[in-house]
């Protein structure tokens, strides 16, 4: 394995890039588009003005005040209905995140301590909107309820020094580690962008290795590298590794430096995480094309694998929710380990002690391709698989 040979292969690959610049332009364009999409789509990370349907059967000053206050919250936007039927219809068709029913006689019951009952219907089909508007409604009801309590207690002569303790005996002081603003943007973008890159790497490399077979240039490549598949792969992969690693680091800089996503640890370690993800994804590509050295088949497999890995990371649905028998499955995906590494570094800033196991896992992905190298070599040499 001489350096000279490797250099020649690298030059050959760069020549391919020059002839077909799509290898460079497409990943750049994809990552740019996705960055713009994920970072702008979720805006500030918390939705505002969620449509909440109100059926006010009381229409008193108190109930109107309640509706106005609810409308003034950042989360909610009130849509008024005359009948529950109409409101239900709009909730059923997904136009409302929740419906709140104010009973008739609400005000007079409230004044006479007869406990008028509010009824809330939550639209649980649209998760984020439903959960948030539910929270908004509950806060507003508790506030209104608290105001009534305060009135009565004041009338009973409770001194103002004791009032707070009477109204709110327990308070929760909430600390959100790693995402203090509860931003969906931070949660999603910091995983979807590396996820997209991983997908791009797997597909482009399967394609790069597969086209050698498809256009029958693989034998020439092998001859150029003195018949060594390892030399051929190293030479072919050096330019890609440099390119994808740079692209990945750009993603990290974009997330944690330009977008100011909170990071407890160091950006440098996240760069390392990214480098490991790039290498592991490349290894997956080699493994897939080596296992089935047919370009069309391997590409479809790579596509299925990389789409699946988005659901396997566990940043939306934690792995422990999966059936026990499937819980080992996510470990087969590099993105899962990237995510666990990221949690350690970004949320806790725990450094090497926290993520060394994930780093080892990512490195371990470099081993399986070795098993398929002989097969890939023979396919490259004999060209004895279907061309497409």
């Amino acid at each position: 394995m001489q350096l000279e040979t490797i250099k020649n292969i690298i030059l050959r690959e760069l020549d391919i890039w020059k002839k077909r610049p799509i290898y460079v332009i497409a990943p750049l364009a994809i990552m740019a588009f996705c960055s713009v999409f994920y970072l702008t789509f979720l805006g500030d990370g918390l939705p505002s003005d969620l449509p909440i349907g109100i059926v006010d059967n009381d229409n008193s000053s108190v109930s109107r005040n309640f509706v106005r206050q609810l409308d003034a919250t950042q989360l909610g936007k009130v849509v008024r209905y005359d009948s529950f039927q109409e409101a239900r219809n709009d909730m059923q068709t997904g136009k409302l995140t929740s419906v709140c029913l104010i009973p008739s006689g609400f005000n007079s019951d409230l004044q006479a301590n007869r406990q008028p009952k509010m009824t809330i219907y939550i639209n649980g089909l649209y998760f984020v909107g439903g959960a948030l508007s539910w929270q908004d409604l509950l806060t507003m009801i508790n506030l209104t309820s608290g105001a009534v309590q305060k009135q009565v207690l004041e009338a009973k002569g409770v001194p103002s020094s004791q009032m707070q303790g009477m109204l709110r005996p327990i308070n929760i002081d909430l600390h959100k580690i790693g995402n203090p603003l509860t931003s969906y943007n931070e949660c999603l973008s910091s995983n979807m962008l590396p996820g997209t890159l991983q997908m791009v790497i797997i597909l482009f490399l399967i394609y790069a290795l597969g086209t050698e077979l498809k256009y029958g240039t693989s034998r020439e490549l092998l001859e150029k590298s003195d018949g060594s598949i390892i030399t051929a792969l190293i030479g072919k992969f050096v330019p890609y590794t440099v390119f994808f690693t740079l692209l990945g680091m750009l993603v990290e800089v974009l997330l944690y430096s330009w977008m100011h996503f909170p990071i407890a640890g160091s950006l440098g370690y996240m760069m390392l995480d990214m480098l490991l993800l790039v290498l592991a994804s490349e290894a997956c590509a080699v493994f897939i094309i080596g296992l089935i050295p047919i370009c069309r088949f391997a590409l479809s497999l790579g596509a299925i694998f990389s789409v699946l890995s988005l659901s396997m990371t566990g940043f939306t649905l934690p792995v422990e929710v999966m059936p026990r028998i499937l819980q080992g499955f996510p470990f087969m995906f590099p993105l899962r380990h990237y995510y666990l590494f990221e949690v350690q570094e970004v949320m806790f800033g725990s450094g090497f002690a926290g993520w060394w196991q994930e780093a080892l896992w990512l490195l371990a992905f470099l081993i399986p391709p070795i098993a398929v190298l002989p097969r890939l070599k023979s396919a490259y040499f004999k060209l004895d698989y279907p061309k497409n």
Partner: protein
Amino acid sequence: MGYLKKWFADALSVCRHELKRISADSGVMVIFLVAGLGYPLLYNCIYHNGVLEDTPIAVVDMSNTAHSRRYIRKVDSTRELNVAFRCSSMDEAEALMRDRKAKGVVYFPPEFGKDIDEGRTATLSIYADMSSFLYYKNLMLGANFVMLDEMKQIKIERYSAGGMSDQEISQLIEAIPYEDNNPYNRTFSYSIFFLSAALLLIIQQVMFYGMSLLAGTAREEGRSFTHLIGRMHGPGVGRIVLGRGAAYWLLFMIIGTYIACLVPAMFGLPQRGSFLDILVLLLFFVTDCVFFATAWSSLFTKRETVLVALLFISPIVMFLTGFSWPVTAFPKFWRLFSYIFPTSFACPAFINLNTAGCDLTQIKDLILCLTIQTGIYCAISFVAAYIEHLRD
């Protein structure tokens, strides 16, 4: 009459020809079988439970009073949380969180019990692991639920010490009682909301990638389906586009019925809509998808391009269905962008029909959008095929 007969015979042979090509292509068959038939099963297995229960948390009780101990017992008995660790210091709890053994910490300061005994507001602290929003949700729900319950008890004690009668107290502490219902997704199950949107998306994306793969392959080999146009008597564009579309339409009405009707039944997802209504929606949706895929697949001159360059769009299209981020919060541009995809109308329609139990009249606007979209993509498909034919 003779022309009509000929027309159908031609279209039928194009359809048969396309079906043959589909079955002969290993790459396309992998996508149709593994992704089309397998993904729905796999996603159902992964997301089958959908509800996270007994999230392990650590408790640091510096107060160590009857109040804090009762609070901890109640937290432990909620469905959402499990007090897995009792720590003697915050450092210990933090270490457990860093090791990802505890997904949250509840901390009672030394003065907690005293504050309650002396009628002040007692504050406890919660530290939440935000790596998944479901941990956070569980911690909030569990701790808040217990807080409300505890507050009620403490208020009863304090109010009665203030000289109120039992009746007054019970009326006052719940001045406005409420009843909450979550009719469509009672436990806020992740699977119901995720899968309802994912199922139709799979139909659309699988068809799009499969058709584009084949169109690209044919063009690479210099035998695009539009070559057949020249062989027809009279204007052949209609027969070719519709005949080819019919092949996919037939295939995906079968796959679609499997995905939209059989899979939810197999996994016990809610099926509140009528079977016929869902079939009607599928008719509109699959037809729309056929023309959507035909129109876009005319862009690909190479087999691999579509998978390599456009796979990244799938998760984006998923978000554009509005299943998680509410449609009303979409930035305007992305809202317009979402109109490109049939699923942006069909997924809400399916969710409304299947899970919320709507009938067809309630989703007629969405069906209308699908129809308009079908018309536009149909026109584009015809024009694109004709242009390609002229070019050859």
